[in-house]
């Protein structure tokens, strides 16, 4: 193929207005490099909020795509769409998880103006309430640490409005649950210590399981890369759930919350688990579909989130 430099013109996808014309672009240039060049002429559109495509209504080109390999002539016409203000996934995760951790503790320590004044800074007489605080806090500390040290994100950013939506969900539910569990009139579980022990076992097993899956997924992908491979069970027994399910991390997550709901016997916790389950099922089905599309040899026994069922 000729190594002649190409010309690139960038048009607005909606108005077809010519926004930028790049003379002498290397054929081996990637979309990421073109995005950087585009930012120079339009600094308000930083690369993370640019969506460039070959067709105004088509799919976004990936940052790694090489200009030469795309079906373009000597002048490449790319269509631009503004994705809106972006925020990094790491920032969103840290904010949405730090909230529940902090908020739950406000209720646990019965900070003033939540319950009646005679209860300010008092402590619950039920063991399960203290145990619940430990479990809830552990869960969110685990999530924060995983965000910082374990997860490898495919996308750097998401739309800014997501942080408001996500924080409302996490912080709102955390406050709602914490209010009842730490309430002076809280009623401990009907079947007492037996119920709490069983629920705690479920919770701990699912937390370990979820962590194991996160580690296994991390090991699939080298640092800094965006490769995608089929996950398989490893020597860790918790990962054997991969035999039956595409997204065992979600399976274990739902399990943890079911455990927490049984432990606290609190309806808001059950509702939170239900809503979380619904959302994770949608994500799991999407992930499962992409796996099936991308890999011909994908194991047929696997279901998205619940073995054999869903």
């Amino acid at each position: 193929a000729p190594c002649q430099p190409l010309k690139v013109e960038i048009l607005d996808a909606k108005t077809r207005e010519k926004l930028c014309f790049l003379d002498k672009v290397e054929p081996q240039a990637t979309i990421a490099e073109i995005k950087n060049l585009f930012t120079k002429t339009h600094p308000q559109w930083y690369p993370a909020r640019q969506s460039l495509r070959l067709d105004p209504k088509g799919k976004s080109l990936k940052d790694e795509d090489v200009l030469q390999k795309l079906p373009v002539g000597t002048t490449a016409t790319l269509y631009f769409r503004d994705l809106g203000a972006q925020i990094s996934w790491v920032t969103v995760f840290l904010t949405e998880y730090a909230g529940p951790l902090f908020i739950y503790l406000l209720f646990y320590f019965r900070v003033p103006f939540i319950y009646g004044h005679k209860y300010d800074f008092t402590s619950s007489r039920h063991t399960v309430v203290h145990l619940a605080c430990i479990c809830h806090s552990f869960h969110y500390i685990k999530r924060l640490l995983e965000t910082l040290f374990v997860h490898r994100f495919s996308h750097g950013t998401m739309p800014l409005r997501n942080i408001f939506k996500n924080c409302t969900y996490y912080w709102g539910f955390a406050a709602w649950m914490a209010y009842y569990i730490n309430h002076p009139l809280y009623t401990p579980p009907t079947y007492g210590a037996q119920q709490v022990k069983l629920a705690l076992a479920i919770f701990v097993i699912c937390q370990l399981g979820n962590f194991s899956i996160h580690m296994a997924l991390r090991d699939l992908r080298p640092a800094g890369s965006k490769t995608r491979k089929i996950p398989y069970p490893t020597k860790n027994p918790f990962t054997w759930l991969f035999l039956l399910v595409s997204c065992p991390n979600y399976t274990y997550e739902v399990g943890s919350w079911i455990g927490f709901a049984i432990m606290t016997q609190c309806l808001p916790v059950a509702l939170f688990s239900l809503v979380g389950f619904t959302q994770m099922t949608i994500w799991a089905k999407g992930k499962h579909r992409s796996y099936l599309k991308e890999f011909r040899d994908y194991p047929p026994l696997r279901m998205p989130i619940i073995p054999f069922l869903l």
Partner: protein
Amino acid sequence: WNPSFSPVHPFTVLPKHSWLPQYRFTFSTSCQQANTQKLTHRICVSLWAPTHVVPHPCISYSSVQSEDSVLLFVIAWTITEIIRYSFYTFSLLNHLPYLIKWARYTLFIVLYPMGVSGELLTIYAALPFVRQAGLYSISLPNKYNFSFDYYAFLILIMISYIPIFPQLYFHMIHQRRKILSHTEEHKKFE
């Protein structure tokens, strides 16, 4: 006389709009509109019914008030629904008289505020009764560690009218401008 049932029973949750080839309504607005209407109808009727079935001496004056406000929204919504479903029916038969289309996109200007006022007044009038009777409310302590205050919920509903009603109203006004002027242009070329 039982005004709880409109002559045209609203199966308003399903977005019938999507079948119509000519008019494209945004799914979210029409669903929002339909769901909001269904929910508020239910709340208003369920508020009004207890005050009548079990008359309470302390709030007999507000039963009268709520009777008027119920009349207000029932009349407003009944007329709206009759026009709206005629509109859909004729559209599906591809034989839509201009009068129906005009009525649908013009009368709402008066009927929507009437209906919303009726609903808000009904809810407001019923509040003391709800507080007194603890209607639909659960308090602590209980086995499932849950509580619900219907009174507070109703206040929240009333507040939610502030963002939701203008959105729906101005959406209809926008639709009116688009659809009625479109027809005017068609008429010019006939």
